[in-house]
């Protein structure tokens, strides 16, 4: 008995030795909303992050060291996100943080990260985290999803090219919707657009017919709906059931995904929205620098079984991009040090990710421009590039 025990111990030791010999892993924190209202984005983001880290480690890691992710659930609450961020930094001693998922949580984490000088690459939709001014400095905060203003410009460029002069706005009463409204209003004159009317709605609501009807009476050529989640599909349905001439329905860059098609059903036909190239990988020309990245990501996404649980949508790639930026930053910095990583991240140019080609500067902590987006048209129940 004792002999067998000793033998087993020796065997275990033998297997464990190479692990001891390998380099210390680089600790990276992950904050994802795995429960609460943002869980439909947060949970797949976590799976993508784990998949990406595994790929990086299988390819030899970064700076010869493997990456180890320490992941916590933010419950979609800013208070919990801050608590978990502090646990990551002060207890787990991570080098940098990926996430959180929602803009409110992002703001709570950002304040702390800026004080503690921890690089954070966020996957939040809203701009305030990297806007500066009254939202505080953003020297250590980055984000991978396109800026709201970038998406607004993309929509307006399309509308201007299609001779639209009069638009109506319908935005959610949350941080994301408000951010959209601010930019939609301030950028409209630049593209010669008149905002005829604006309405807000509760993104947790189940019917927005009243707002849709009211906006419809102003006879806008197009109506722009700015929200994440099922509310966008509900609003599209409400507009589709308006009597008489219907305006062109434009959704925001948070909507592209199978869920929208499913929920909106026939009402989705003819709706346009900006989206990442992830939503139409087949339409990419051969010379596109993102083509290889996007195709590989789509393949890995389904091979790892994530596609079966969470069908690919426009949010799927943001956690991947955050890790790719982190990897590129670490390699440029040449050492696992927060300040060096931050400086390196700020000098990254032309890093192809799923959401676009990132070129980050100290002023622009997102690094994506309007050509990272394409306009999508729902045709026959599928997303196709809009002409």
């Amino acid at each position, binding site marked *: 008995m004792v002999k067998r025990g000793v033998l087993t111990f020796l065997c275990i030791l033998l297997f464990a030795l190479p692990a001891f010999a390998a380099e210390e892993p680089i600790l990276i924190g992950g904050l994802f909303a*795995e*429960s*609460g209202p943002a*869980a439909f984005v947060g949970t797949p983001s976590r799976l993508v992050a784990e998949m990406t880290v595994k790929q990086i480690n299988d390819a030899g890691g970064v700076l010869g060291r493997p990456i180890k992710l320490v992941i*916590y*659930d933010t*419950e979609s*609450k*800013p*208070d*919990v996100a*801050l*608590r978990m961020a*502090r*646990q990551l*930094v*002060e*207890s787990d001693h991570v080098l940098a943080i990926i996430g959180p998922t929602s*803009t*409110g949580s992002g*703001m*709570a984490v950002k*304040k*702390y990260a800026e004080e503690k000088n921890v690089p954070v690459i966020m996957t939040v939709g*809203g701009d*305030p985290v990297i806007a500066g001014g*009254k*939202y*505080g400095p953003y020297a250590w905060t980055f984000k991978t999803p396109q800026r709201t203003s970038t998406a607004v410009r993309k929509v307006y460029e399309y509308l201007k090219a299609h001779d639209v002069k009069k638009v109506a706005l319908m935005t959610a*009463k*949350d*941080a994301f*919707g*408000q*951010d959209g409204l601010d930019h939609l209003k301030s950028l409209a004159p630049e593209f010669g657009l008149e905002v005829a009317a604006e309405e*807000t709605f509760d993104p947790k609501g189940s019917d927005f017919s009243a707002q849709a009807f009211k906006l419809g009476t102003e006879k806008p050529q197009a109506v722009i709906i700015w929200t994440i989640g099922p509310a966008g599909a509900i609003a599209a349905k409400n507009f589709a059931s308006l009597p008489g001439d219907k305006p062109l329905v434009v959704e925001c860059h948070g909507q592209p995904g199978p869920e929208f098609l499913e929920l909106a059903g026939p009402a989705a036909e003819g709706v346009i929205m900006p989206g990442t190239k992830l939503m139409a990988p087949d339409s990419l020309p051969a010379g596109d620098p993102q083509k290889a990245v996007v195709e590989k990501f789509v393949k890995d996404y389904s091979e790892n079984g994530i596609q079966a649980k969470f069908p690919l949508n426009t949010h799927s790639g943001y956690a991947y991009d955050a890790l790719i930026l982190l990897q590129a930053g670490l390699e440029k910095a040449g050492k696992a040090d927060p300040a060096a990583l931050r400086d390196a991240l700020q000098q990254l140019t032309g890093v192809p990710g799923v959401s676009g080609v990132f070129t980050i500067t100290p002023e622009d902590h997102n690094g994506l421009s309007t050509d990272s987006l394409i306009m999508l048209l729902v045709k026959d129940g599928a997303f196709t590039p809009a002409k």
Partner: protein
Amino acid sequence: MKPRNYRKAVILFFLVLAALGFVLPSYQLLAFNQHLFLAINVLALNFCLGLGGQISLAQGAFAGLGAYGSVILHGFFPGASPLIVPVCAGGAFLAAALLSLPMERLGEGFLAMATLGVSLIFTNLILTFDGLTGGSAGLMVSAPLVIPGVGEVSGDREYFLLFLGLLALGAYVFLSLRKSRLGRALQACKDDPPAASSCGVNRPMVRALAFGLGAALSALSGVLYGHYSGFISPEQYGLELSLMALLFLVIGGPGNLMRPILAALVLETALGQMHFLGDARTLCNGLLLGAALLLGYWRESKGKPLLPGL
């Protein structure tokens, strides 16, 4: 328990908590402070529900009133904390008392509806005046809280002591109020409103006072929490906070001082550790509530069956 022993137990409880504050590492104090913030709101609701027998769903809004009021006023007058903090507490007291007065005249149960409205209106006000409040994007807190003679308050341990002090102050007021003439009048209103009125208790006034005190306590907790977290947004002070306060008060038993506070501190800490629960956390809250209600019924009915034959 004898009154003197009870008081000793309460003091011991606060001493143990204070000792914990010096042992725990800083980042765990953050979680502790967040739970203390909830516990103070549970106690605040206890003034209204436990003593006066009225359900309020506006504790979150009153905490938000304190947080937004203090942060915005500090933005205009940095360093004027000794003036601003009482203004916030007094403002919440007045608003709550003025709300409670007409509701009491309308009849039983109207306060719950009115306070539900207050919660929703408060969130909408924050969203509407986004120039001042930052809207749903939230507001960065620029000016710190200043205590005269001590200086700027910052750091987890300092705030921990303030939260604990506020909870102790609330507990002291609660205990002395419960034994006072006002407390007895409240008890009478809770047990039999018509009888209380016919005995000469000014019911609207008495209940307005209790409700106002609870609101002021919530507002003070909001002032502390707003400056502590450094970032305030409407979702932190929404209906959810009010419902959580109600949940833990009912689990602990309204009218009891320590049990609801303990329920909030212990259960929140425990649930906060259980990351694997995910969305099942809400289910856990529901189960706890159900169990607490059954237990409370069993305790009060001295073992009578809940349903015939059960």
